[in-house]
């Protein structure tokens, strides 16, 4: 069975080659639909779209730096119950990692799904993308992809990739069934297709592609990318750490928050149907607010802003994949992602866990371990 294959790129048309590849997939292995980033015909935005008509696959654009939402929750919606056919979902690595978390949380299933990962070229914030992309979306994508893959410094008229992308040390979709590889590959001539699971292997077999070797340059390029990103990330952790080191500092960090809860809606792993913050749990008696106000002389309303973020950190920091959609969604430009990633990095490290790494790994707090954190629970004495 072939594990690694290639598709040829004609006339340096990377998008065209990808679109042909997706057309090829439709119908194979009982795949009746593809969910992929797709350029809305009337608007310039790229949105996750479920496509069944092969002709419509000409609108697919997985290389675009548009990343309006994390599609994990959408794939969860498509797979929660049997749909009567297989779906292939084209996703960024962070989307796949979030999806893996949702599967563990029983919010999604993988049995009628083929995950197609792509080497992630990074993305812009939503407003940045709309400002930058201009009228011709395909041209914008070509310009962007060309710059990223040539290894040159990406220059997009002063607009930068999101902080989430620049600090992302996991740009390869390890958890996919099939991965589409660009890094370290001569993308002017070919694209690398790799099967990462048995399911992916069967599809690859069916696609009848030419076998290929992974070029040696690929690992090198990925390592370079990762070390660059890791350095940026660690710098970010240090900076954020300084800014949130006390309750007062954290309050200042989140001072702009208006409790709109957009970050929660945008978060792919905030999976509760009804968040505890919209239930009556934090509805206090009017007299209670007055007592607080009297005690301190003044009390900010609503009173649970900080608690909201801390609670969300407690709930999802072990599942946070760092996709940055929280920052993207914030109307008041609070850097939510750096805060969450900084904390998530520590909590995941503490549980020897990496969100989205593997379906087999049990989520922290899901099982009782007697010897866990003995120094904290006082079992060491």
């Amino acid at each position, binding site marked *: 069975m072939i594990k690694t294959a290639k598709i040829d790129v004609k006339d340096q048309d990377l998008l065209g080659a990808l679109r042909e590849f997706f057309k090829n997939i439709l119908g194979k292995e009982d795949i009746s639909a593809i969910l992929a980033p797709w350029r809305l015909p009337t608007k310039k935005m790229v949105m996750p779209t479920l496509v069944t008509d092969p002709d419509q696959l000409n609108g697919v654009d997985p290389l675009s730096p548009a990343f309006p939402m994390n599609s994990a929750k959408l794939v969860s919606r498509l797979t929660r119950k049997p749909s009567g056919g297989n779906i292939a979902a084209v996703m960024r690595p962070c989307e796949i990692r979030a999806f893996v978390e949702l599967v563990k*949380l*029983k*919010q999604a299933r993988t049995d009628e799904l083929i995950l197609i990962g792509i080497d992630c070229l990074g993305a812009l914030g939503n407003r940045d993308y709309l400002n930058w992309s201009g009228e011709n979306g395909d041209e914008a994508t070509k310009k962007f992809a060309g710059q990223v893959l040539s290894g040159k410094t990406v220059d997009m008229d002063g607009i930068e990739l999101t902080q989430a992308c620049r600090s992302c040390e996991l740009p390869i979709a390890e958890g996919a069934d099939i991965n589409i590889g660009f890094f370290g590959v001569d993308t002017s001539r070919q694209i690398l297709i790799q099967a990462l699971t048995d399911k992916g292997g069967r599809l690859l077999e069916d696609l009848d592609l030419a076998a290929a070797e992974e070029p040696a340059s690929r690992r090198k390029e990925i390592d370079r990318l990762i070390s660059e990103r890791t350095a940026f990330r660690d710098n970010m952790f240090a900076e954020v750490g300084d800014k949130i080191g006390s309750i007062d500092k954290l309050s200042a960090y989140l001072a702009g928050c208006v409790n709109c809860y957009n970050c929660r809606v945008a978060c792919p792993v905030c*999976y*509760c*149907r*009804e*968040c*505890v913050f919209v*239930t009556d*749990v*934090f509805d206090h008696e009017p007299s*209670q607010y007055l*007592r607080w106000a*009297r*005690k*301190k*002389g003044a009390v900010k309303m609503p009173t649970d802003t900080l608690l909201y973020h801390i609670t969300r950190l407690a*709930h*999802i920091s072990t599942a946070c994949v760092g996709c940055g959609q929280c920052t993207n969604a914030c109307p008041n430009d609070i850097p939510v992602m750096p805060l969450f990633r900084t904390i998530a990095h520590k909590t995941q490290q503490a549980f020897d866990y990496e969100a989205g790494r593997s379906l087999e790994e*049990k*989520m922290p*707090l*899901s*099982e*009782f371990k*007697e010897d866990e954190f003995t120094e904290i629970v006082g*079992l060491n*004495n």
Partner: protein
Amino acid sequence: MGKKMGKALVVGAGISGIRSALDLAETGYGVTLIEREQHIGGILSQLDDQFPSNHCGMCKMLPLVKRDQSSQFCLRKGLFHENIDILLNTEVIAIDGEPGKFSVSVRKKPTWVDPERCVGCGVCEAVCPVEIPDTFNEGLATRKAIYLPVPHTIPNPYVIDLAACSHCGECEKICPTQAIQLSFEKRKDFRVLVVDDELIVRDSLKEWLDEEGFFVDVAESGSVALEKLSKASFNLMLTDIKMPGMDGVALLKKAKESFPDLCVLMMTAFATVETAVEAMKIGAEDYLMKPFDPERMIAKIVQIYEEIEAGDVRDLEVGAIVFSGGTSYFDPAELKNIYGYRTNSSVITSLELERLLSGTGPTQGRLVRPHDGKTIEKIAWIQCVGSRDVQLNADYCSSVCCMVAIKESMLVIKKSPSPVETTIFYMDMRTFGKTFQRYRDSAEQEHGVRFERARIHSITADTVSGEPIIRYAQTDGSLHNETFDLVVLAVGQRPARGIEELSKLIEAPLNPWGFIQTEPLSPVATDRSGVLAGGSFSGLKDISESMMYASAASLEASRIIHVAGGSLSDESFSEPALQDVSREEPKMLVAVCNCGNKYSEHLDTEALTHQLEQDPCVDKVVFLRQCCTAAGWEELTEIIETSKPNRILIGACHPYLYIRKLRELSHRVHLDAEMMDVVDIMSPTFAYIKNPTNQLSPVSHQLSTLKVGISRLKNMDPLPTTSLPVTRRALVVGGGIAGMHAALAIADHGYPVDLVEQSDRLGGNLLWLHQTIEGVPLEPYLHEIVQAAEKHPLLNIHLQTKITAAFGEVGDFYTTIESGDKTIKTIQHGTVILATGGNEATTSAYGYGTSQAVITQKELESRLVQGDVDLEKLDSVVMIQCVDSRQEPRNYCSRVCCPTSLKHALKLKAENPQLAVYILYRDMMAIGFTESYFTAARKAGVIFIQYNLDNKPRVTIPTESNTPLFITVTDPILARPLEIEADLLVLATGIVPQLPTTLANAFAAETDQDGFFLEAESKWRPVDALKEGVFGCGIALSPRSVPDTIATAGAAAQRALRILAHEKLSAGKIVSSVRHSLCSLCERCIDTCPYNARYLDPDRRKIVVNPAMCQGCGDCATTCPNSASVLQGFTDVQVLDMIDAAIESTWQPGSSIDPVGPKQ
């Protein structure tokens, strides 16, 4: 309607006694649990960590169903159960009557400190001038004459060791609660008569006893003594034995005739000890040896004084008695003391090491050498100290020491700050239990524990450094000297202290080793009908076996009480009707105990009242004078009856003490006990009094604690307790000895039982097993029990029947069975016992299957029974142990093979002494009293040759028949290969389970990696599955002997009866539930629930909680991110309100009367 309640007495509150008492109490009997020490827990109160989890785990004994009847906290701290009366410091002094109707006298000794008044402040201890070795810490630390017997019980009143007390009276003066009443003046009323012909003895005794405060008179002869006795009454007479004229024995006889209540102590020289012992048979209490050691003598007399004068004797009427007296431990300083114990301070016992490792020990758990604080880098254990020693009358294996040593070595490695070398010197490493071998292997291979098979010659001290040097011989005879920092003696078990007297008292004999005699086929019954032996009282047991034997004993006790018709019954209370307060606004009574105004300067009643009444839900704040007293409690009850609150908060000292009281109060005032709470306001007050610096003032603490209590109570939702109906019928799978025994036990209690057996005959392994190692024939027993099963009107036997499907939960299972003729039937039942047994393993090792001369032990047994072996014609028989056993994949000891080989070797030798019998073994697992058969076999000339896994015996099968086999094995003593000619090679292949995974899974029971039934907890719940209502017994659990199988069957039946005895199982008040509208069905609560109480109902797409199985731990509520999982009694609203209350109340007196007032 109330139900008949039988009563039982359990003697000894170690873990075994606690297990028996809880079993009986949970089944609905009234239990009196007595303990001669001042605390419960027995030896386990000294041991913190147990194999295999290396934690404690005692709490796992607590009830799971109807758990609100009982305390639900650390059992080392204490135990409360509605149906159990615990009497500490109490001993049995007389037993009369018959099964079903015993009359028992028990005597409670005084502790001289009123536990009701003692608040544990400890000021008495500080002023006590006496300092003696602390028994709790095995003498590694000291204590005062007034002391805490254990550091951890609640309540934990002080007691006085009167024998050590110097009567200075300082403690009595300083006690703030007047809890100490030494009442020395009362001693004047205790009249002692000293009779001796020697003036010097009379005078010195008089002087000593005068000093102790007793009234003393003297007499120089028997006749003078009798005259004095007739003139004035005396409590105690001390009499010499050898006196001119009337001797002491004659005086005793005469005195006892006229004054039968007089207590007499004989004084004797060494020459007349036998006479003194004889005198005890005719009524003397004890004897004192001359020359006197004043300290011991006075201790003895004080003890008698305590018993006679101050003892509180009460009579109990009970249906059955369980003795759980445990064991004591060998003192290595006794006799020859070859290890220099107590002379070399670097030689300690395993019990001392446990104390050194304990956080409550002399070094607070810091592992250093006790006498000089040296870091331990090299430590050795010496096994079998006082065990397996014929000279010490200990021809038995203490059974627990091997695993204790391995566990201790692992703990030492874990607790040592720096690398430590650990060595265990042993004869046979007896890893006979379920996971023991793998635990040993991991100690050796992963943790580097060195196992050294050796004989210890002696321990000497280095002449310069004094470090202990172990001189030992390896198996090849070579001698070695090795220096260690610390040597630990694995001291063996001894019969319980005072067991001889007890044996006389209960009229039941002791076995040859001094334990209570029980019979192999009724392993918990003593010779006295109605009196049972639980735990290790009848022999050597580890924790899990103690649990099994304790439950087996409680089963037999229950059976006796049941057969007697639950006589001596009390009518228990019927559940009272509770008022429905769910629609009322909270109206709370806050009652604060002022502890008899002893701390009035620390209790600002005005401020507290003002503060607390600010909360609109507080109706009234009252202050009570000592609510722990009957009068104080009555005062509270009256206030409640007049003011009719719907919530009651009590601020007092130990909340644990009030569990039972609140339930009684609830019955009386018809308010749900869940609407009442007790909070501890006294502990912080005491802490402040002891150390006033750096502390919040007591008033802020009291306020904060009370406000937190108010917050929890006012938001309490008074939901009725749910209960689940019980189908009072049991299913037993497997018709072997275990299944039949369990089924009969349940049926004898009046509940129908379905007994399912896949073959066409009842009997299991007993169909081929002929006799036990003790020589008890099994056929008559089998015949009897099969007949009993077949005749029992409530027992439905289904032969040639299989289980095809099952579902359900405790109290309500549905199981489909299919019989041989394909008839399908569904049975509804409340519990299930899996007794599916096991078989001898098959093998292809050592040429088995290629020669008629190679057989298994089972085949040998059958041949011996059928007379198929012509023993006269045999010259040589070789037996190989551990065939395919104790190595992966079957890395466990099958436990029965060594005794079986010994049994057969002895039989062969008995029939043909000329026959050469060789047993090739790895470690002889002759545990418990089986050791004596190992000794007997060696005496009979059976040759034992030890082999290792890397050097297994080799067998050469001859090509021609009728020529002997050749077995080659390396003898470690000769250190060279031996070639043995054998006519017969007998293989001990071990036991494999016969529990199909599909069957186990049908009942949601799990199997372990070897296919045996997986216990909920290997030590503390050894016959329970994790899923309530499912039990296992016999070989399905793990390989075991017939007596042990019978005990496990009894235990499983008892665990089942505890459920079947109730029409309904009531859940606890604290149970979790699901708010379905919030639930995202992520199922994390299901994964995290340790009690399997939650499942996803696939049809309704909802998470369902079984309230009877939920134990209210709250794990689900912490895992659920949006509070869809709710724990009753700890809802978000309650907990958040409590946190607010705690934070708000940081109020300092003197600042402002209003802590939430404007900032200054």
